């Protein structure tokens, strides 16, 4: 029914292939054009898919599987090369190709000075291809393929500046963390095949409710192993440490991969497998708890960082925590809606930060910024809009999505008062760290007088304005998104009762965060010092990211090193190497002794020949 959906995969792939082979030989203009055009056309195709879904009957919107051909056909295992076009995948594609296109356009300006321009765009196209494959997959196999390939794209792009040691190390860290998740996914896929005899979504999800009782051990295990993948990809506690380090990559990469799309794959996964998760309320509870805890911890860490991108990275983790909270309390479409609005305003924040970094010549420390409002008015305005949306300021997009999550965390079937309270606390933190960052960057006096900041070129500013528009007004889509996605989630349209007191509380807490940021960073330096001294132990803890990196280092990396050293010395050097060397030495010694026979003297050889002949004769004649 939607065969042209394949083009969404094919176009970025073609762009990737072309730019990797001919990227060095074409001009920057051509490379940038190809990089953007493939994604732009993919976005247009996604719009036609959306239109196609909207005009079709709601009942026919799910389960449109496009089979290209039968890829594997064994007696007990069947696998098609197929994609699934349904509201959820089209919704994700809109975010991926739409925001992806804007970020590609922005990159044309941001990366213009980079000598490896074409390589950057080829990786970016590869990422869009992989991410589209991830959301379009119609079975767990291609889901995992896409899952692993976005990890690879993330690795390549974090380590894009290969001359920076920190970037290469961060890329490696991200890859290792993601592989932990991949392993979980693969185990889950095996278990699913074991129970259902199939790994296609359609068969698994239709068979699941009859096969399992709620909270069966097997369904809990399957959902938990899937969850390992989701946590690793979406940087949830305890697999979150790679995301702040991933900020070593170019800023458009942070915006596209580490804010708008890839890190939300975990939320997508849970939403996609909602049938399985609804059968496992214990797992849902775990998701919601981890989500809300991540929202809190990440917010706390973000409050004290000084690197502009790291602050936003922690904020991303925190917002991902909210999405997990939403899907954890069973309101999947609300989580997906927050995913969308978050993609808008977080991409906008990152791109705004990139604009600032660009104009200050790669300065990322907010203590050296300040007073940028006047030289960079558009960046300033759009950044302000994004900050307001992030803090869920009334009438911005973030308000509709985040407040819905906070409300549902109490009113949903799986919600409770604790989730609500913690989510509220996290919202207050969001207000604080967002505006702390904003004040540091744009207000006050410039703290590096030698810099001459200037507004970024149009090609970077226009995407900012479009995203700002979306961050302001996308909130009104809330009802539509819930309706549109309902067929995927069993026709369930979440409705939170209006409770003006609770809504007012949520708004007040957010505003309180903003006000405390004003109090500490705009008006009084003395109060700030006072708070830092009073809360010194806590401040220390947050500044050092709760020592989780050190914890992993001490409990995992170090013991691994010791074990590795032991085996290198005892097993490899003294065991394997020794045995092999001994065999070699013995062979050489024996050959050395035998080689005496080869004296090089012709008469000696002749004598041996004749003697041998005589021996043979004697043997033949007399024996």
């Amino acid at each position: 029914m939607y065969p042209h959906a394949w083009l969404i995969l094919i176009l970025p792939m073609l762009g990737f292939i072309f730019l990797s082979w001919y990227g060095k030989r074409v001009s920057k203009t051509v490379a940038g054009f190809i990089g953007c055009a493939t994604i732009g056309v993919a976005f247009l195709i996604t719009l036609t898919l959306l239109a196609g879904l909207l005009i079709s009957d709601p009942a026919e919107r799910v389960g449109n599987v496009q089979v290209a051909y039968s890829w594997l056909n064994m007696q007990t295992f069947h696998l098609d090369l197929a994609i699934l076009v349904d509201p959820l995948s089209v919704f994700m594609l809109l975010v991926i190709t739409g925001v992806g296109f804007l970020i590609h356009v922005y990159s044309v300006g941001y990366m213009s000075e980079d000598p490896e321009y074409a390589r950057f765009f080829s990786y970016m196209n590869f990422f869009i291809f992989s991410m589209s494959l991830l959301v379009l997959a119609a079975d767990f196999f291609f889901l995992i393929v896409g899952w692993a390939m976005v990890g690879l794209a993330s690795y390549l792009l974090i380590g894009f500046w290969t001359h920076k040691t920190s970037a290469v190390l961060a890329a490696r860290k991200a890859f290792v963390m993601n592989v932990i998740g991949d392993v979980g996914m693969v185990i889950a896929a095996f278990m699913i095949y074991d129970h259902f005899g199939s790994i296609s979504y359609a068969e698994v999800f239709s068979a699941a409710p009859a096969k399992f009782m709620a909270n069966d051990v097997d369904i809990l295990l399957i959902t938990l192993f899937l969850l390992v993948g989701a946590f690793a990809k979406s940087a949830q506690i305890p697999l979150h440490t790679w995301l702040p380090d991933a900020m070593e990559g170019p800023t458009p990469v942070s915006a596209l991969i580490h804010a708008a799309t890839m890190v939300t794959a975990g939320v997508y996964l849970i939403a996609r497998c909602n049938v399985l998760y609804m059968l496992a309320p214990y797992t849902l509870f775990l998701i919601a708890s981890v989500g809300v805890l991540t929202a809190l911890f990440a917010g706390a860490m973000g409050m004290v960082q000084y690197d502009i991108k790291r602050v936003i990275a922690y904020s991303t983790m925190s917002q991902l925590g909210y999405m997990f909270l939403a899907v954890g309390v069973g309101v999947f479409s609300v989580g997906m809606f927050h995913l969308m609005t978050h993609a808008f305003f977080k991409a906008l924040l990152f791109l705004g930060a990139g604009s600032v970094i660009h104009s200050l010549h790669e300065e990322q420390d907010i203590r050296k910024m300040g007073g940028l409002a006047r030289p960079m008015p558009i960046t300033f305005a759009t950044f302000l809009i994004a900050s307001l949306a992030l803090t869920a300021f009334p009438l911005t997009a973030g308000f509709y999505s985040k407040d819905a999550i906070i409300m549902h965390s109490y009113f949903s079937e799986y919600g409770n008062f604790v989730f609500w309270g913690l989510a509220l606390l996290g919202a207050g933190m969001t207000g604080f760290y967002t505006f702390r960052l904003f004040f540091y960057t744009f207000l006050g006096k410039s703290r590096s007088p030698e810099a001459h900041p200037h507004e970024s070129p149009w090609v970077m500013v226009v995407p900012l304005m479009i995203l700002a528009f979306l961050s302001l007004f996308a909130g009104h889509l809330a009802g539509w998104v819930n309706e549109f996605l309902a067929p995927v989630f069993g026709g369930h349209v979440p409705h939170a009762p209006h409770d003006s007191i609770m809504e007012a509380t949520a708004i007040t807490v957010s505003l309180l965060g903003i006000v405390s940021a004003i109090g500490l960073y705009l008006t009084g330096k003395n109060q700030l010092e006072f708070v830092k001294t009073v809360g010194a132990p806590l401040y220390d803890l947050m500044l050092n990211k709760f020592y989780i990196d050190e914890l992993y280092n001490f409990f995992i990396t170090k013991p691994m090193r010791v074990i590795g050293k032991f085996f290198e010395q005892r097993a490899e050097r003294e065991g394997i190497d020794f045995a092999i060397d001994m065999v070699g030495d013995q062979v050489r010694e024996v050959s050395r002794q035998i080689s005496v026979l080869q004296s090089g003297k012709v008469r000696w050889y002749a004598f041996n020949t004749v003697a041998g002949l005589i021996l043979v004769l004697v043997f033949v004649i007399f024996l």
Partner: protein
Amino acid sequence: MGTTFILFLSASIFSIGAIGFLIRKNPLVMFMCVELMLNAVNLVLVAYSKFLQSMDGQVFALIIMTVAAAEVVVGLAIILTIFRTRHELNVDHIDVLKG
């Protein structure tokens, strides 16, 4: 002359060739000894050819002579080159190709 006599003659020539090859140090003489051995074998082949009334033996003898001639060409060329470079011909001193 019976076949027996020819066989004894051939055996004697072969032994002379073999012993000569073993005890002489001049490559030219050794070469001649090799030829003695080859031709002793030829003699046997021809003798048996007559004895068995078959032409096979004579054909073999011709082939052996052809190969021997070709071999002499190569062998003499090598000996000549060795003499030119080392100014002496003693097989016991030519032992560069040892293991």
